[in-house]
């Protein structure tokens, strides 16, 4: 319950944060909402010697529309994302995924950026960001770069963030009003046993391109490319057809197994959740 001792620093700017990361090396961890990191520290599964709190860094919170798309500061809380009218219009999938995280109290503290950087294999927002083809704005020692979602989530608890990088914003380049999230929650942890995020590009009443991302099944959220391919060209009102095509969503993925749910079940539920997300997204296109 009591974390091991550590030094606590607050960064006043992104540059300072990067400097502090460089200075302290792998003894240091960044602190955003703390709702992925602190639970691990309380169980002494993580013991950083230095925490660098980003809470005072300006410009890392908030949702705004820019030339790049909809930009969400990395320190924006799950609750703020869930309640944002802009997000709900632009990409309801993300609002739904944010609203599905944990519980009310967790959503008031945990952040979009923190959750993405933590990269739990069973996490709601990463799946949504993958389906929405989000871009991750990362500030590092040598400047700012953006990384596409498909390159950002590398493995369990592993992202494209380097040791001295700070994730500053998540950018949604394209609006997907026909998008939705479906989740089979773990009854104790509220984590997704399986979650499916679907964003549809629709044209002339048919699916031009489907993006379906699954979380909870593999060691990292993945796109169900097989299903995406099958859905191309299908009319959004043909519910039966769309549902029947949501099969083998986890094709080619080595599925996880734990005390609560086995691999076979997760694979089957990937299809079920994918279908739900696709149908709900299609509903928004009509």
């Amino acid at each position, binding site marked *: 319950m*009591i974390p091991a001792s550590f030094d606590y620093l607050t960064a006043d700017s992104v540059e300072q944060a990067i400097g502090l990361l460089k200075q302290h090396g792998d003894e240091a961890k960044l602190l955003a909402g703390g709702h992925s990191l602190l639970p691990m520290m309380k169980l*002494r599964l993580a013991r950083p010697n230095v925490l660098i709190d980003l809470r005072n860094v300006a410009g890392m919170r908030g949702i705004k529309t820019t030339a790049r798309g909809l930009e969400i500061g990395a320190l924006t809380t799950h609750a703020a994302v869930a309640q944002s009218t802009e997000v709900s219009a632009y990409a309801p999938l993300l609002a739904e995924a944010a609203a599905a995280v944990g519980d009310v109290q967790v959503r008031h503290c945990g952040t979009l950026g923190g959750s993405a950087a933590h990269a739990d294999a069973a996490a709601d927002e990463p799946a949504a960001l993958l389906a929405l083809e989000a871009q991750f704005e990362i500030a590092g020692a040598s400047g700012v770069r953006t990384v596409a979602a498909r390159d950002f989530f590398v493995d369990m608890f592993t992202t494209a963030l380097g040791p001295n990088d700070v994730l500053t914003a998540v950018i949604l380049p394209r609006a997907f009003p026909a998008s939705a999230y479906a989740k*089979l929650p773990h009854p*104790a942890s509220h984590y997704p046993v399986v979650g499916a995020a679907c964003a549809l590009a629709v044209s002339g009443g048919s699916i031009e391109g489907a993006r379906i991302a699954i979380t909870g099944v593999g060691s990292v959220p993945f796109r169900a490319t097989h299903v995406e391919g099958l859905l191309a060209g299908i009319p959004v009102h043909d519910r039966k057809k769309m549902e029947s095509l949501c099969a083998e969503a986890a094709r080619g993925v080595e599925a996880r197994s734990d005390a609560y*749910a086995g691999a076979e*079940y997760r694979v089957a539920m990937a299809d079920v959740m994918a279908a739900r997300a696709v149908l709900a997204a299609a509903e928004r296109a009509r």
Partner: protein
Amino acid sequence: MAFTSMMGARVTRREDPRLITGRSTYVDDVKLVGTTYAAFVRSPFAHAKITRIDVSAAKASPGVLAAFTADDMRNVGDVPTAPQIEGLKVPKHPPLARGRVAYAGEPVVAVIAETPAAARDAADLVEVEYEELPAVVDLERAVAGAPYVHDEFGTNIAFTMEINGGDTESAFKNAAVTVSERLLNQRLAPVSIEPRGMVAHWEPGPQHLTLWSSTQIPHLLRTQMAVALGIPEHRVRSIAPEVGGGFGSKLDVYAEEIVAAFASRALDRPVKYVETRSESFMATVHGRDQIDLVEIAADRDGRISGLKVKILANLGAYHQLLTPAIPTLTALMVPGAYDIKNVAVTLHGLFTTEVPTDAYRGAGRPEATYLIERAIDLLAAKLGMDPAEVRRRNLIKKEQFPYASAVGLTYDTGDYHAAFEKALQLAGYDALRKEQEHGRSEGRLLGIGLSSYVEVCGMGPSSALPAPGWGSATVRMEPTGRVTVMTGASPHGQGEETTFAQMVSDRLGVPIDDVVVLHGDSAIVQYGIGTFGSRSTAVDGAALYRALDTVREKAMKIAAHQMEANVGDLEFKNGKIAVKGNPEKAMSIGEVAFAAFRGLNLPPDVEPGLEATRRFEPPNFVYPFGTHVCVVEIERATGAVKVLKYVAVDDCGNIINPMIVEGQIHGGIAQGLSQALYEEIVYDENGQLTNGSLLQYAVPHAGQLPMYELDRTVTPTDVNPMGIKGVGEAGTIGATPAVVNAVVDALAPFGIVNMDMPCKPERVWRVMSGHDGETNEKAAKS
């Protein structure tokens, strides 16, 4: 609101003002100057020899006062266990492991430091070396032979109990139909939201030990701790402060409590220990954990002629306070609410390298009700009969009370059919079956489950228990006419500060706000047995009733003398003792109390004061009963079970406060339902707890439980003068089989007749998809 009578009144609780404002004192809120803190080093292995312990680094760590091992506690007694079952094997159970560990989580070293953080940091520096031994986790292998948890016994069977009533051999030989099944009653964790804790304060000056423990049994704890520590009992004070739930898990004496008290005496400093939740999963007793082989015999009309049950009960590695007694309660209740003349039970209590089991809401009776209620449904399925009708034909009839069961208990009073029919009517059973039929034609998986239970509680006759079972109460009228009650009950949510005040108000006629009910402090309250086993009202309430009788009697004598009347000419009503037919000539109870205090003009054979201490030795247990009806729908795609409706008709005899009774039933149903659908403690083959955290062990939240529709019948007991039975555990006992029966009923189209708890989505999904091709096709099409 003016209640016409305090009995049966929905009085809001006297406990609540301090609780809703966060201004009470739970054990972690007890703050003494100079408090030190204990952190424990626990075994990571299920079974091992301890080959080396090195506490030197821990002792040198900042803020550390001591690091104790079993060697330091050689003169301290073992963790106590009460039951004395014939032939019971009792392993030595020192508070800190000596030479070996028998479950993962067993405490090995206690570090005492100036702050909790310092204690935890130092505990991380303790080095313990182990030589692993084989884990024992499988009950069917454990009963068969080696490896043994305790080599000295040459067996894992701690005890065997056999009960034979009637002639099951003939019954089964002559039966038209028999059904058998292997039922699992999975291990659970009680998870009261307040974890366990203790503050032990040894004062070297007065040579006195004060204990604050989040306990259900403050007086029993005091006695046991005095014995274990070798401190004279009269120099120990035991206090249960506000206790945040127990459910049986705090009806115990724990190693950490003994260690904290020992440490306090060794260091002349107060020592506080509060377990973390993760610790709790491996340091606080678990519940249930049985494999039950049931065989039931009946005629073609569903009349049950015989019942055979073989119970394998997982006791865990050691005996905590009541561990082996719990499954004996299962054995005694296997026939349930049914008139079964021929019953044979064999019970083996088994050691495993797991956390000890002990009382958890229902404590042995949920297991019995589960097995008989599932057996009824299995029988109904085999006969193609409505499970309601099978129950109807076999429930004990009201004319049969008091009912002597085939296993040797006498059920006090009951009208099982009345509660049964009321429940079916309230649920709209016939309409539900029609709805189910219609739903099935549309491919919906609807299930209706029944549970008709009776349970044994109001623990209990001292001769039938491993510890005393009497109740105690003191009623003291103060000079100003207020009333102080001291009850031997130790409530932790059950509301006796309110209900007992209601009883006093009713019988002495004083306003309820003039009554205070004290409990949980051995320096204030006469010896009490504590709160557990649904006994507080039935047993300690009965003692209170007697004490009120004595006070009334004495008050009448004093009033008679002072009014120069005969006692026989007086009546005591609404707080006044008046001459019958002459209401002007009266004394209020307050005036009598003052007179008793003042000591003037008292009857020559009456001492001053108006106070009584009485005890109640229950002549029998009490047997609440009822019927629950549960309706579920299974989501075909995921296997998720949704409870659509939950109806409960329960009979606990007379009721003091219906609001509190309903609350107990709500909470009880929640826990019973949760066993059916959500909770299970899972050990792997190495004796490692795989899901010992609230991230994995699913204690339900509000979104996972339904509304409960309650009603009642009232069949008073004759075991106590108030006619009140216990109710704290009844909801749990009735609920689990109602839910599982509903799930199995929902799966009937697949030809399923049984599945194990908890009915998690994946389990249900597997059961559905693992079946024959035809039903799979049907499933795929819908």
